[in-house]
């Protein structure tokens, strides 16, 4: 008999990186090699990560599908499971179910400019697609990343931010909220929507990907509209509470949509069709 | 009944309150809550012996509260619940008017909660004879017999929390069972977990329960969970000399009185 849908893969924590206060990245490898060989995912998908005895928690796969042999996840300590995860050590075995959900349509974006806009702890879902795009750089035209956080300390993936800063095939704009800067901060100071407005990227042949806290998204969408972005070219991911991840448990149901099945990636055009319950 | 409707209309028409909470005829010979927001609706108000749902459960409900000042038709248990809620700072004279209903179905106009308190204090919280008998029987059981009794009664519980929802004193925005760091009480319903849930609930109602039986009436599986709170009422009486909901906010368990009987130490 085949295993049930609820059986997780066993994953070993290969490496733990502290990104920001309370934010950690795990590099995970399959305990069974066979699982590794059968496993494939695409940018935008998520999984259910579990500490046995504590429960499961939902977050995206933060590494790019172009990087084989492992997956990464980044999470902030905020609940029962993420606290337990934070207590894990390198070498510990945790559970992972997935991949679930839809994907960023990178194939459709070929030949276009991509504008990534992220805030705070929402960079991880985007990191996956950013690296995917950078690893297949020839498929795309200009790539711009706007990333903001409350303070310099709260910026995640600091090493990768440095790398993107140096690369000349990607434009990185980082910003921190007023008051969050340090004396030697060289980036922008201001909220993400106003920085987007300030750098005013062209909407011509460009898709925008926006991930961040609800308030940031709320104020970024009008800015993009003003800049001429059409709703179907603006992408985001929803973060509804989920339990099963495959359209049964009912938690993420919004209108006729199951965020875990039909999302988490949505265009703004799709969101406008949904009831405001996300 | 006419008095009640008249009073409700008057309160609405004079804008003394925004909503009057009362009973109406429900489906299948049940009665149910009615929210009177304009005076035509007041004609639907009824009151009879079937009206046992404790309407005080609604005065802490956000959607009802947000309508503005409320009036509530209140039998004795409902009045008790209101006073207890007032002592816990959940309602006050500024947001609630009580229309009392006597056992003879006469209505009493209370000017303020103090008057309600005075009325309520005329009556002691007493366990009725039928339940008294069951409690006596339980008291006489050996611990293992009693354990079996409760396992049998409580294992069908599927934790729908109708008892909690119907109880006027269960107004916490985050119940202990919803607390998961640590997870004191398991989310799933299993024998031991069910016991933990109901015992915890009874403990949290000790010294606060107004003995309205709303929990047992609400249980879709007809589990006599009110026996637990009734037992607590009895224990409160024998060990602490009993209690009455009081506006002074003197809670039975959190306040020390030199004349508390401390039988439980014996």
């Amino acid at each position: 008999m085949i295993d049930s849908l609820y059986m997780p893969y066993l994953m070993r924590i290969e490496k733990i990186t502290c990104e920001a206060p309370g934010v950690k990245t795990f590099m995970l490898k399959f305990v069974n090699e066979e699982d590794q060989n059968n496993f494939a995912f695409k940018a935008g998908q998520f999984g259910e990560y579990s500490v046995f005895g504590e429960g499961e928690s939902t977050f995206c796969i933060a590494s790019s599908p172009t990087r084989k042999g492992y997956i990464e996840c980044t999470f902030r300590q905020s609940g029962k499971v993420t606290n337990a995860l934070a207590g894990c050590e390198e070498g510990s075995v945790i559970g992972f179910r997935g991949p679930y959900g839809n994907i960023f349509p990178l194939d459709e974006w070929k030949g276009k400019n991509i504008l990534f806009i992220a805030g705070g702890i929402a960079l991880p879902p985007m990191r996956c697609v950013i690296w995917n795009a950078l690893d297949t750089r020839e498929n795309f035209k200009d790539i711009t990343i706007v990333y903001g956080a409350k303070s310099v300390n709260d910026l995640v993936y600091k090493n990768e931010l440095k790398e993107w800063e140096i690369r000349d095939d990607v434009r990185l704009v980082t910003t921190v909220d007023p008051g969050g800067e340090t004396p030697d901060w060289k980036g922008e100071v201001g909220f993400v929507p106003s920085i987007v407005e300030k750098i005013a990227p062209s909407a011509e042949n460009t898709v925008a990907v926006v991930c961040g806290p609800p308030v940031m998204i709320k104020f970024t969408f009008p800015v993009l509209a003003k800049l001429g972005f059409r709703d179907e070219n603006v992408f985001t991911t929803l973060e509804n509470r989920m339990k099963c991840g495959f359209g049964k448990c009912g938690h993420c149901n919004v209108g006729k949509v199951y965020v875990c099945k039909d999302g988490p990636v949505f265009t703004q055009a799709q969101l406008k069709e949904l009831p405001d319950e996300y | 009944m006419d008095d009640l409707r008249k009073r409700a209309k008057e309160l609405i028409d004079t804008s003394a309150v925004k909503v009057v909470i009362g009973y109406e005829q429900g489906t299948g010979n049940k009665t149910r809550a009615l929210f009177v927001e304009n005076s035509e609706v007041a004609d639907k108000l009824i009151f009879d012996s079937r009206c046992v749902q404790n309407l005080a459960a609604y005065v802490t409900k956000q959607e009802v509260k947000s309508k503005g000042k409320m009036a509530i038709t209140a039998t004795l248990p409902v009045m008790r619940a209101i006073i207890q809620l007032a002592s816990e700072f959940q309602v006050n004279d500024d947001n609630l008017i009580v229309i009392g209903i006597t056992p003879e179905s006469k209505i009493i106009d209370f000017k303020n909660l103090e008057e309600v308190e005075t009325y309520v204090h005329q009556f002691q919280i007493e366990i009725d004879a039928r339940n008294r008998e069951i409690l006596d029987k339980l008291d006489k059981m050996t611990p293992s017999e009693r354990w079996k009794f409760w396992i049998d009664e409580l294992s069908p519980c599927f934790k729908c929390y109708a008892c909690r929802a119907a109880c006027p004193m269960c107004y916490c925005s985050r119940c202990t069972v919803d607390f998961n760091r640590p997870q004191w009480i398991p989310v799933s319903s299993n024998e031991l977990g069910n016991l933990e849930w109901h015992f915890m609930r009874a403990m949290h109602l000790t010294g606060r329960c107004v003995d309205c039986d709303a929990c047992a009436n609400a249980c879709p599986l007809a589990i006599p969970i009110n026996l637990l709170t009734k037992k607590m009422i009895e224990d409160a009486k024998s060990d602490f000399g009993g209690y009455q909901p009081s506006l002074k906010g003197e809670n039975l368990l959190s306040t020390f009185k030199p004349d508390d009987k401390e039988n439980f130490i014996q």
Partner: protein
Amino acid sequence: MNIERRLVRKDSLEKLFDILRQNKKTVFAPVMKNGKASFKPVGSFSSIAEDYIQTTQSSKEVIFPRVEKFLDYEKNGKEVSIKGFDYQSVTETVLWGVRPCDTIGFGTLNSIFNWDFKDEIFNARLSKTIILSFSCNKSDDYCFCTSVGGNPGSTAGSDILFTKLGADGDYLAEVVTEKGQAIVALASELFEKTESVEKEKFLANVPVKFNQEEIRKKLEKFFKSSQWVEQSLKCLGCGACAFVCPTCACFDIQDDAHGKIGSRMRCWDSCGYSQFTVHTSGHNPRSVQSQRWRQRIMHKFSYMPERLSVYGCTGCGRCSRACPADMNILEHLISIQEVKI
């Protein structure tokens, strides 16, 4: 396959029951306790309740238990070993005395658990369950199966449907499936050949109260209606309706730890609970009861038909009977139908 019609003498039911028991089948049947009928494993025919319109809870628990353990783990230092669902533990089960409005519900559950990913645990239980249902010869004001595509004598979802022919009569057995035939084969002498019987006249009369297609269409434009708020003001936000419902399938996934060992399971949940959709941040997309009540109705009568091509309601009326605040789903559906948009 074609439905086979047989006659079962009223005295033969007990014999059938005993034969099933002798074949080491677990038989779930309605039993009365505290004045409420509920499905329990039954050892003797005499303990089966007879005089009830509907059990308080649906029989879904037999196939979708309130707690379904699907893995065991053992921790050893940093290592973990896990053991998946034990399919061997699912044994042949007979559901006895189910009403047609329950059996239809299994079809709905089947759609939920298999519309995309296939839920093998659910399927294992469903395939091992033999459903012997009984037509309704009486009904009450809460019943409305005929409004949602069912009827008191519907064979849908049953393996064998029994219809009592008159107050003290024998039973018409309609053998619907191969599983049903297998039961007949076990006790073929009890299933007599019969002429065609007009079973309709022995069935309860449940008038049609609304048109669910119309409701579905109306709901598409009804999301912002003030009715939701008005209807749900008396709703107390408990989960009684969902837990007694034959088609409600929302669940939670929880771990149960005992030191180094433990298990993971799914357990029933309800979209009516305030915590159902709350994010870790505290943001709650459905923060008030009216939104949650709307979700319940919309899910059953709009979202499910659209996504899964099934309605999420069988008209059993259990939710209305169980509701401590007398939220009557039929009443609300009729009032939605009556609203002019």
